[in-house]
């Protein structure tokens, strides 16, 4: 008990911790309520997926990569399929391209809302947490009605998409978006102005722009520090060049800015889904599959957490000889060192959550 009153001592946060969705283990050296040093031990969610991928065939890997992480569970199979399509020179039909973006944006909305809700949960704002989660349910219902599962959409396959979305379903999606949009305005207002929330998040876990560049950050974390990086715009893929959207940035670089970036991106995603509903062309859902030749391919996309990169090497069999992916959390993870410098114990889980860490992606 004397330890708590001044001298340094170690606080083992995790691996089983209610604030963290996943087993992540921090050894936090604390002096009173101040954090002096953070040591991150990783590997708890290592399921050996890269090795598993070389045991499974190309089709099984679609499902396997979908289970890398369920919060960005559409980005992984999408990027994986794109890598193979690049390798084999498969031309994906335009309708399928549109539907792929649809699935991706629906997933992005749900993922961002979840992260923002968890932020409220961590600061003990239970009512707000429940409200945001309840709003997120609109998107969960869309996923369940259109794709048949609340987390794993199973939308992508090699050369296209598996499920068609007809006019009736699009009508349902647009109606849901309308409901969502009404709530979003209210939620953004609350997050932007609520004094309790702001006093806990503004100026916490600051990451200046130059540090963001130095650490090579991606996704909403980089955009929260004023760094306008977005693969959808910087290295366009699919039909993104034909759609209009803004790359959202905030300049604060703190927990609050990152949350605001995510919330405002939800609105961008809503607009993207609307554009897809309006411009969806007729056509096939999948391209005919050729024999996948031996070779190497790669692809990158903007996952909800940032840039996702896939590399695949094949021989002539249908089992890849190497499958490697670099996930956004891997880049953002290291920057925790800067953000957590001399923060309060109360803010540790808050800051960790603000980079939307995906441990299961990073440790696969």
């Amino acid at each position: 008990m004397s330890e708590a009153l001044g001298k340094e001592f170690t606080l083992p946060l995790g691996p089983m911790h209610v604030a963290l969705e996943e087993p992540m283990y921090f050894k936090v050296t604390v002096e009173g309520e101040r954090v002096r040093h953070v040591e991150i031990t990783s590997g708890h969610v290592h399921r050996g997926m890269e090795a598993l991928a070389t045991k499974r065939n190309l089709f099984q890997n679609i499902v396997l990569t979908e289970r890398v992480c369920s919060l960005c569970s559409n980005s992984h199979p999408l990027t994986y399929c794109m890598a193979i399509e690049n390798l084999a020179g498969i031309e994906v039909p335009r309708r399928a391209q549109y539907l792929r973006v649809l699935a991706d944006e629906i997933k992005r909305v749900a993922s961002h809302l979840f992260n923002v809700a968890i932020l409220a949960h961590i600061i003990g704002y239970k009512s707000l947490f429940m409200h945001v989660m309840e709003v997120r349910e609109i998107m969960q219902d869309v996923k369940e009605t259109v794709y048949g599962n609340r987390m794993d959409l199973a939308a992508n396959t090699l050369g296209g998409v598996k499920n068609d979305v007809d006019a009736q379903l699009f009508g349902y999606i647009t109606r849901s978006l309308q409901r969502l949009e009404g709530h979003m305005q209210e939620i953004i207002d609350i997050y932007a102005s609520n004094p309790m929330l702001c006093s806990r998040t503004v100026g916490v876990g600051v990451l200046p722009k130059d540090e963001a560049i130095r650490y090579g950050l991606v996704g909403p974390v980089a955009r929260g520090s004023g760094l306008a990086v977005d693969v959808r715009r910087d290295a366009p893929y699919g039909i993104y060049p034909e759609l209009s959207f803004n790359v959202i940035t905030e300049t604060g670089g703190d927990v609050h800015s990152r949350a605001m970036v995510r919330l405002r991106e939800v609105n961008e995603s809503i607009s993207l889904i609307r554009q897809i509903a309006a411009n969806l062309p007729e056509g096939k859902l999948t391209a005919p599959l050729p024999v996948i030749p031996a070779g190497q391919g790669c692809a990158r996309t903007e996952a909800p957490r940032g840039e996702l990169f896939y590399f695949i090497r094949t021989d002539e069999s249908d089992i890849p000889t190497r499958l490697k992916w670099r996930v956004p959390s891997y880049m953002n993870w290291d920057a925790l060192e800067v953000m957590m410098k001399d923060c309060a114990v109360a803010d540790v889980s808050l800051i960790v959550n603000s980079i939307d860490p995906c441990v299961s992606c990073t440790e696969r």
Partner: protein
Amino acid sequence: MFRFLKLLGKNLAQGPSTDPFPAKEAHTPERFRGRVVVNPEQCVGCRICHHMCAGGAIRIEDNEEKTGYNFTVWHNTCALCGMCRHYCPTKAITLSTDWHNAHTQEDKYDWAAHYSIPYLACAGCGAHIRMLPPQLAARLYAHSPVDMTDLLKLCPSCRQLAAARREEISNDTHEQE
């Protein structure tokens, strides 16, 4: 702060939004991906589903007497990804909307669907074959001038013989003309 209090007030006025689920059946969307169901009539045993299944939930094995094969879906390994349904050439696999999956540990190894699909004895030589499902055959040979009903009951080699014999007959008639 005021905005949030307004939200709470609205919540209070609107009343609970809780689903009455355990008391009442919950809504399940039509496209919900639930337990895998196989239509044994339509299955030809091509094993493409087995090839696609990432979890290894599908098992297809000959039965002991070799008079048919057993098709087993282990629900406790099935990731509900729908790959088997998507790639099934005869559309024999569908995903039901049944999600009532909780079961006790004693039932763990019974939590599977077993289908026993018989082979047919070839009308010519008696070898075991899996007959092409009639609906599928009707679609496949819709424009064929030959009557397939009897031919489908033959194994590939007997069918080859039959085809050769048919050629012979048609050649004979041709010569007679």
